[in-house]
């Protein structure tokens, strides 16, 4: 095991047991990018199992009021994500905790976009990319920056079509005059120092779920990791990676 891999595992342990400061989070993200095949949740899962076994001897019933509040805030039945369901193309605002947002995802940045297939030059929907045979899927994880602390969702990408869509929930809305999100795509055979610029985008306020088409500037090939940074308005050519909002690692 290399020294840097040991450092990575040490930070995963610290994250799971006492948390990380901003500098440590940045360092962890840097190491995760250097080690794209690492299971970055192994410590969290293991500690979770210990916690669960410990709690089994200490549980007391919830108060009636708390139980009712939790149930009331839960997702409605049948609102679970349904990949076979076509995603609508207009924005929608739903309950914060409702999964209806997954189906009523708001698509933004419907600008000029590369072809999904052949000469079809319209923007692909999340469901359309998911339906492709070679689709690659990866879940968003917090990247250390506060903007991504509550992020969930996933990114889907088709190497054959060179098209993809990012689906976010919980990613903080940004003020485009102050900062914008920028996607970086790491791929097999590509130097990690020079990931593909996946485009600049914004997250509007008040939306549960946002779909953002990926606007890669170069051929991506087989992606290994998607990273979203917070950058100055208009984006940058080379990111300092100081503000990593979220990352999605493609499973091997």
């Amino acid at each position, binding site marked *: *095991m290399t020294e840097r891999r*040991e450092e990575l*595992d*040490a930070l995963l*342990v*610290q*994250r*799971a*047991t*006492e*948390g990380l400061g901003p500098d440590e989070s940045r360092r962890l993200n840097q190491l995760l990018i250097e080690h794209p095949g690492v299971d970055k*949740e*192994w*410590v*969290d*899962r*293991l*500690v*979770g*199992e*210990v*916690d*669960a*076994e*410990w*709690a*089994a*001897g*200490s*549980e*007391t*019933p*919830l*108060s009636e009021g*708390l*139980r009712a*509040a*939790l*149930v009331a*805030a*839960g*997702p409605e*039945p*049948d*609102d*679970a*994500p349904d990949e076979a369901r076509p995603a609508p193309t207009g924005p929608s605002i739903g309950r*914060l*905790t409702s*999964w209806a947002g997954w189906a009523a995802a708001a698509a933004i940045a419907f600008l000029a976009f590369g072809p999904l297939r052949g000469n079809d030059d319209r923007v692909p929907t999340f469901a359309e990319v998911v339906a492709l045979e070679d689709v690659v899927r990866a*879940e968003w994880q917090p990247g250390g920056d506060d903007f991504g*602390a*509550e992020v*969930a969702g996933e990114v889907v990408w088709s190497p054959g079509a060179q098209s993809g869509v990012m689906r976010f*929930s*919980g990613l903080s809305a940004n003020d485009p005059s102050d900062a914008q999100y920028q996607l970086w795509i790491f791929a097999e055979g590509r130097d990690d120092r020079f990931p593909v610029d996946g485009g600049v985008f914004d997250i509007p306020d008040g939306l549960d779920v946002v779909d953002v088409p990926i606007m890669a500037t170069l051929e991506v090939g087989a992606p290994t990791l998607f990273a979203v940074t917070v950058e100055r308005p208009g984006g940058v050519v080379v990111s300092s990676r100081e503000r990593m909002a979220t990352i999605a690692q493609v499973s091997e």
Partner: protein
Amino acid sequence: MEKGDVVELAEWRAGRDGAMTTLRLGSPLLRLSRGEVGAVEACVDAYGPMVQALIRRLRPAASDVEDVVQEVFVALWRSAHRFDPDRASDRGFVAMITRRRVIDRTRREERQPSTVEYDPGQDRGSDEHERTLGRLQAGPAMDALRRLSEERRRWIVMAVVEGYSHREIAERSNTPLGTVKSGIRRGLAEMRGWLEGEDMQEVRG
């Protein structure tokens, strides 16, 4: 431990080869991910007491336990689709989300997530940590914990269950911080290997 827990933990152990797929059908978390009627209530009843107990342990002085419980469940509703029964038990997955929310919240409050008032020089001794260990219910994680060397087991119990920071553990055990950190890391890696049946040669090396 209740009967249902035994099934879930058994699933976790046997899940990788898919041998117990049918037993997973009853997991409230999986029912939730399928959008089944009644799954929300089932999740609240199955995991709510555990979430509440963990929060009380991790934030013993806090008066906002119910607020944090609600915060955890909001995160659970969002993250349930990520649950993979081949990689974790459903209770372990929920506990993982709970710990993350507690640490995030505590970090935001600029306090360490210590569950014990720090009193340097007054280590409660190995017996106390063993009593803490004894409170853990029978299960795969506890079995793995018991297989560790006494030192690594004590440090992991202090870090995970009792909530001491690595620095506090080092001071209490009169051990260099780096030694404590590597001991905890290697101990957890050993546990992972036993639970997942991996070759531990690399970890030990």
